[in-house]
């Protein structure tokens, strides 16, 4: 169930919430939409789910256009909107039954599907409670259950772990990974670790435009600045500044060295080396040759967070 978005634009009044974006989602892929609040993630999802029409461009789900074949598209999609709206006066079972009826699930399949959703989403204990009585975590699970009850080929989840405590977050992520295995999933979030934990691919959106598109590893790779190595050497008889510092600095590819001082019996250094270089081996040999004791040598990878900051902070309008 592939999704094709081409030159999508959406205006709220004169403001461009989504500005000429294009991307594809392959069948079975879990795509993460990452972006600051107001970037256009929710708007894009609302267009894909046929809640609102685009102002320009097109969206096709499995070849069906969201404007021409809206009914067809909606049959294939399971949607968890932002803020997870629910009917507070219904109990969980009633609500799931209602959802299955609206999706045209045949009478004989309704009960088995409901049982499966209750089990998979862990709603067994609360299934006879009114939704209004449930905690946020359980409500989120009901929202997910409703999105999946008709076994749709596409899942659109808008901030599915919003407002959950860390335990609940892990559970929901696990659920998404599990159920998303054979489905095409788009989930939006502004929690970077979530993207890393659940998604095959990431699109970073900022101010209505796509600023990055790739796997988490590829993005980290692409946006890697200079390499950073943290080095801790044992303090010995030698003086760190006069003896160690210049020797470290003179190694090939080293662009900059910071001496952070002495902490107990450790000398701490931070090395910045050229992009793409990995001097850990030379550093090790150098240490051996000079009789330094290496207590710690860590190469830090550009985190997705840094990628995010780079891409979204830089886009701030200059006032």
């Amino acid at each position, binding site marked *: 169930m592939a999704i094709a978005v081409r030159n999508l634009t959406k205006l709220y009044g004169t403001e461009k919430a989504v500005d000429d974006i294009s991307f594809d989602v392959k069948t079975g892929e879990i795509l993460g939409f990452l972006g600051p609040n107001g970037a256009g993630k929710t708007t894009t999802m*609302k267009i894909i*789910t*046929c*809640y*609102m*029409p685009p102002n320009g461009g097109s969206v096709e789900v499995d070849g069906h256009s969201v404007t021409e074949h809206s*009914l067809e598209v*909606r*049959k294939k*999609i399971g*949607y968890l*909107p932002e*803020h997870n*709206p*629910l*009917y*507070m*006066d*219904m109990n969980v079972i*009633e609500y799931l039954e*209602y*959802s299955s*009826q*609206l*999706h*045209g699930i045949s009478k004989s399949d309704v009960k088995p599907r409901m049982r499966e959703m209750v089990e998979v989403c862990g709603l067994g204990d609360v299934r006879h409670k009114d939704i209004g009585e449930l905690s946020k975590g359980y409500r989120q699970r009901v929202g997910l259950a*409703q999105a999946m009850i008709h076994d749709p080929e596409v899942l659109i989840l808008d901030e599915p772990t919003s407002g959950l405590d860390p335990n609940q977050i892990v559970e929901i992520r696990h659920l998404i990974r599990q159920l998303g295995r054979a489905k095409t999933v788009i989930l939006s979030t502004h929690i970077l670790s979530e993207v890393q934990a659940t998604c095959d691919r990431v699109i970073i959106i900022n101010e209505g435009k796509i600023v990055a598109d790739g796997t988490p590893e590829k993005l980290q790779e692409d946006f890697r600045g200079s390499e950073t190595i943290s080095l801790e050497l044992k303090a010995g008889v030698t003086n760190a500044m006069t003896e160690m510092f210049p020797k470290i600095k003179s190694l090939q590819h080293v662009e900059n060295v910071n001496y952070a001082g002495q902490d107990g019996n450790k000398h701490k250094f931070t090395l910045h080396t050229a992009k793409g270089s990995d001097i850990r081996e030379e550093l090790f040999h150098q240490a051996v040759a000079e009789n330094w004791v290496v207590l710690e040598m860590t190469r830090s990878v550009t985190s997705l967070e840094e990628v995010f900051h780079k891409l979204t902070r830089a886009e701030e309008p200059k006032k």
Partner: protein
Amino acid sequence: MNTLTLPFKLSVGNIASIFRKELKSYFNSAVAYVVIVVFFVLMGWFYAGNIFLMNAATLRDMFEYAGIIFLFIIPAMTMRLLAEENKSGTIELLTTKPLQDGEIVLGKFLACWAFVGITILPTLVYYLTIATHGEIDNGPVLGGYLGLLLMTGVYVACGLFASSLTENQIVAFMVGIFFCVALFFVDKTLIFMPDFATGVLQYLSVDYHFSNIARGVIDTRDVVYFASMLGFTLYLTVVSLERRKW
């Protein structure tokens, strides 16, 4: 699911699902019972107390009073139908399900109308009271109930339309009353209107057609009126749903 060949290819199954859910919702809510109680308290106050004083074997007055009371309490029944969905955001879920807007509107309309019907049912007590004490002509009684049902149908449609326009139930209530009152009183203002307008305005009045049917005669003109008012108002509601998505 069953897609009977209704006009515009609406699925009966979907309408039925929404109908059942909304009707159940009415019985789960306190508002519904309050409304029924208020209806009968008012009926008792204005009408029932005077049945024996009137000394006439007719339900005419009951239908008139019922019509006026419903004018105010039907908007109270319809106010949450769409306004609440707009406010809580469930409208987003509802309109992204594979449903047509017409199915949503019809399902909610029929549920409220059915609830009004259930509210009217106990008035049979008045009928029984009079029928056992005098010779009542059943023709106007049947006509009266039919007219009342049709008239309340139009009120429900107006209230539903009002509810679709806002997120605020109170606003929905007030706008609903405005529409219903306008339709009801339009033929009471004929004296003040210029001659050429009187015919049209009288035709537009819900009360005018109701009175016709309540006499016991079912004239096609009146049926056409109710059918087109219902159709028009429900259509407006569908358009209103569409508009919100833009």
